[in-house]
Structure formats: C-alpha cells, structure tokens
C-alpha cells in the first residue's frame, strides 16, 4: 500500500497540448481496474462552452500557462488533496493550446475505498485549480476576434 501510494504521488505533468479525448478518459478508467482496493471513482470534466457574448458566439478557447508555476501548483493541490482525504489515486490533466467548443479541457479523476473521499476530493481539486493555477485563456469568436477570460466564483 505504501509503495503504491508513493508511486501514484510522484509528480508528473498535468499540462499537455490539445484536448482530452474520450479514449484517454476511457483508458484512464480501465487502467484502474487492477487496483481492487478502490470502491469509488469521481470524475470532473471541463468542456469548452459556446457562450454568446454581445451577440457573438465563442468558437474556441486558447489556453496558455505559466508552465513551471502551474505544474508546481497542480502538484501542491494534489498533495493537499491526499493530505485532506483518504484517496487511493488522484490524476489531473489540463489542456493547453486551442480547443474547439465541445472539447474537454480538464480531466480530474479521484479514487478511494468509499465514495465520500473521492467525491469531496474531486470537488476540492477542481475549485483549487480555478483559483490557484496560473492558466490563462482567451475566448475566440466565430469571426476570429477574441476576449480574455477570467474564472468566476463557483456556481
């Protein structure tokens, strides 16, 4: 158990280029079937939304990051989640670059023996990402004009 915990807690990058495919999510779920102490998973998926702003429709979002700091923050958030909840696994993937509406840009995947810790940790990680990780985004409209985006309070 200790060996498994230290293995899953080893820092690995959360940021990568391009959207998160349904196949990647499916593979990630399948990859946990051998971890038979797990009784509950929770998953959060962030999807690029086609907001209408001043009559113009968002077609894509372009993500950039302060990469070194962002990876440190992702790692710290994950460590705090392990400290606060009884987790078996926690994975975070965040996209960079240009994503079209409907594509998945954030994948948070938590696992525990019973449901409470997986569910609470998943929510905690998502809210922490929104406020603590230096990722920036601009919404690109159908006419290629854009506006910079900023996270709002949880709702």
């Amino acid at each position: 158990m200790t060996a498994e915990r230290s293995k899953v807690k080893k820092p690995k990058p959360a940021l990568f280029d391009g959207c998160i495919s349904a196949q990647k999510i499916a593979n990630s779920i399948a990859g946990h079937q051998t971890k038979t102490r797990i009784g509950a998973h929770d998953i959060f998926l962030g999807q690029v939304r086609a907001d209408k702003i001043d009559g113009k429709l968002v077609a894509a979002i372009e993500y950039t990051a302060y990469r070194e700091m962002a990876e440190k923050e992702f790692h710290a958030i994950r460590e705090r989640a392990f400290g606060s909840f009884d987790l078996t696994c926690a994975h975070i993937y965040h996209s960079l670059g240009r994503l079209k509406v409907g594509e998945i840009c954030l994948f948070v995947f938590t696992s525990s023996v019973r449901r409470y810790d997986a569910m609470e940790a998943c929510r905690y990680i998502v809210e922490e990402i929104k406020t603590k990780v230096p990722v920036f985004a601009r919404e690109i409209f159908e006419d290629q004009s854009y506006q910079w985006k900023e996270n709002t309070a949880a709702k």
Partner: protein
Amino acid sequence: MTLRLKYFGMIAEAAGTQEATVDMAVSSVEELKCVLTQDIRKLVDINFQIAVNQSIAQDSCVLNENDEVAVLPGFAGG
C-alpha cells in the same frame, strides 16, 4: 537590481512582450507594482497578481537580485 520579468495573457499583450530582464530601483512587490502600473497602463484597469520565483507574493514581499517575477492576470484554468 536585476529582475527577470515574465508577462502572461492580456498583460503580455499589453506589454508587447512575454519576458524582459530589467534593472529596477525597487525593493518590494508593492514598489514594483507602482512602476509596472506606470509602464503598462492596462494594469490600472485589471486585477493582477505578482509571483516571485513561481509563488504568489504579497505586496510586502522583498525582492532580491535576479528574482523571477511574473505579472499574472486573472486565472482561467478549467
């Protein structure tokens, strides 16, 4: 002192660059913010934070020679 400045998102756009090594007569984040706000007028209108050596820094944070100082607009991850 020499500072390695990094700009991101709309601030990089307003500054016209993503990074610059500068020599500035400032000793704290608060003083740096004053100078930056004069140089980049956009900063008057928006919320921004300063990170020193990849950690968010309060106004009282003391700056040291060759620090990496990032000027960060609002976060939009997720």
